[in-house]
């Protein structure tokens, strides 16, 4: 058997640590971590896209599709387990991503960003006007069971947490393996020079399309889990500022490691909780300032600080 590489080891360690430490966490921290990891899944998808050289200002589209698909599931009988909700969210978002990808895969740079933004705003416009789905208010999502455990009460909360942690671990591990594979290594090559990738005999468009679908599935699963955790979904999930927040976390964490999106996401939620507590009106100011500083001084994201330390320590 191959030796475990560092990322896989870190992923496994954090899985064990989180699952064991979960019951000890206070309720607010449990909620915070669950919510951050669910959103971290969306950012994980953005990491893949950014490695391909694409910045999407419309991941809110898949996020919302996943959440709404999950939200409509309990209306069907026998399918109200959180796991089923999450799978439904991922599949629905994956299908939407495959369809949008037919068009999106042809675009790069700001045109890609703008077109993805337009798609998410189309969904937002539709959701706001659809009274069956609660218009601007959205509706409540409740999973009756989580992995067979009743969803209400402390056990339910921990079960949702465990499901999210396990999903985040699985997604991180699979994406890590994907990035190391032949197909995954084409992503940075496409970012650097598309034409040469074509010369080598690979289809740039197919790779981009595949990466879009993967990112879509991740965002959909993240949206579904967010819906289950928060218990409520609304059209704001598809608004462009939601997508902007995901981009912010992606920039903050950088694309160096699959662990970074989750850490960045937890960091943002922590920052948000404290900022809301002390000065609710300057929250965006803090976020914007942090983003500017990261872009100006740490162009590869916070994760690159670890790399620098490692160099210094050697």
């Amino acid at each position, binding site marked *: 058997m191959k030796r475990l590489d560092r990322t896989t080891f870190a992923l496994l360690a954090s899985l064990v640590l989180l699952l064991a430490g979960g019951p000890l966490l206070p309720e607010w921290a449990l909620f915070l971590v669950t919510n951050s990891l669910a959103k971290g899944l969306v950012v994980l998808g953005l990491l893949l896209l950014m490695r391909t050289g694409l*910045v999407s200002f419309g991941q809110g589209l898949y996020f919302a599709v996943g959440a709404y698909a999950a939200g409509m599931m309990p209306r069907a009988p026998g399918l109200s387990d959180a796991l089923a909700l999450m799978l439904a969210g991922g599949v629905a978002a994956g299908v939407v991503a495959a369809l949008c990808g037919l068009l999106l895969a*042809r*675009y790069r*740079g700001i045109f890609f960003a703008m077109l993805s933004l*337009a798609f998410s705003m189309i969904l937002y416009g539709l959701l706001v006007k659809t009274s069956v789905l609660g218009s601007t208010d959205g509706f409540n999502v409740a999973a009756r069971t989580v992995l067979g455990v009743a969803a209400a009460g402390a056990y339910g909360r921990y079960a949702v947490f465990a499901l999210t942690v396990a999903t985040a671990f699985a997604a991180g591990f699979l994406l890590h393996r994907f990035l190391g594979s032949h197909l995954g290594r084409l992503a940075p090559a496409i970012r650097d020079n598309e034409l040469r990738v074509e010369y080598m005999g690979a289809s740039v468009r197919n790779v981009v399309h595949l990466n879009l679908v993967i990112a879509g599935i991740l965002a959909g699963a993240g949206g579904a889990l967010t819906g289950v955790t928060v218990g409520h979904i609304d059209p704001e999930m598809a608004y462009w500022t939601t997508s902007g927040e995901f981009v912010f976390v992606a920039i903050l964490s950088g694309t160096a490691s699959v662990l970074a999106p989750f850490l960045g996401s937890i960091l943002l939620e922590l920052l948000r909780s404290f900022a809301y507590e002390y000065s609710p*009106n*300057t929250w965006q*100011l803090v976020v*914007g300032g942090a983003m500017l500083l990261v*872009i100006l001084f740490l162009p590869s994201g916070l994760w690159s600080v670890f790399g620098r330390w490692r160099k210094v320590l050697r």
Partner: protein
Amino acid sequence: MGDVLAVVIDGTIYASWLFIIAAGLTIVYGVMRILNMAHGSLYALGAYAATSVVGAWIRGGRAPLVSYALLIAAAIAVGLIFGPLIERGVLRFVYGRDEIVMVLVTYALFLILEDAIKLVWGVESYFITEPYGLLGTVEIGPLTYPVYSGALVLAAIVTGLLLRWGIYGTRYGKLLVAVIHDREMAASLGVNVRNVFLITFTLGTMLAALGGALTAPTVSVVPGMGVETIVLAFAVVVVGGLGSMPGAALGSLIVGLVRSAAVHFFPQVELFSIYLVMALVLALRPRGLFVAPEARKI
């Protein structure tokens, strides 16, 4: 028949408002290759500044007719203060980086400005109705329209003509065209690109603020008014072609007419009709209506 007339007039009014804002966005992109996400916040700044200045003037009991000049003066002041501040203070440090980095930097600026506005003006809404009410209304066929809306259309046309004259008729404008065409060549021939950037960004800021100042009398000025405006302006410039002034004009007209047609005939699709048009245009002409396809680099 009345419906069609209403759609055309409403659409034109909406398009005029959009054009003033989109013109600023497109000129900044054309010259500096920066898609300015903070444009919507600058628009909101213009609206707030105008309400404050005009509000104080009217409360002082002075001649209300001067308020029109004050609206424009407020916009120019916002441009002169915030244009150089943002360009010299932030943007010049990221020149030469990827276009998408520029989007992210201006997105950060957008977040900062949104809260800065809330800190200064609070979260309540502001109204100034005098400049709007003063001009009265006019009847066109069976429809009644405020004269102020006509003034807005006029303002958009004058802005467009001034920009056209400024770009093609003056020495500075010709330097601008040279920079748009080939920044490095222009710089090596002795054009001070630094100054061109500074002036262009100030002009763009001024246009955003002007859009806000001229809208201020017709709406309530509230936090978040820039958030939706910026994505509308994006739709306009993307439809017309990024960096193209005639594109911005045509894009505004298309978006304006589509929206007013949607409002009149299918109100439930109002919001997403605009983005649908944007997606359609991009699907058929990937770089917008007025921009020629670019050669791929190897």
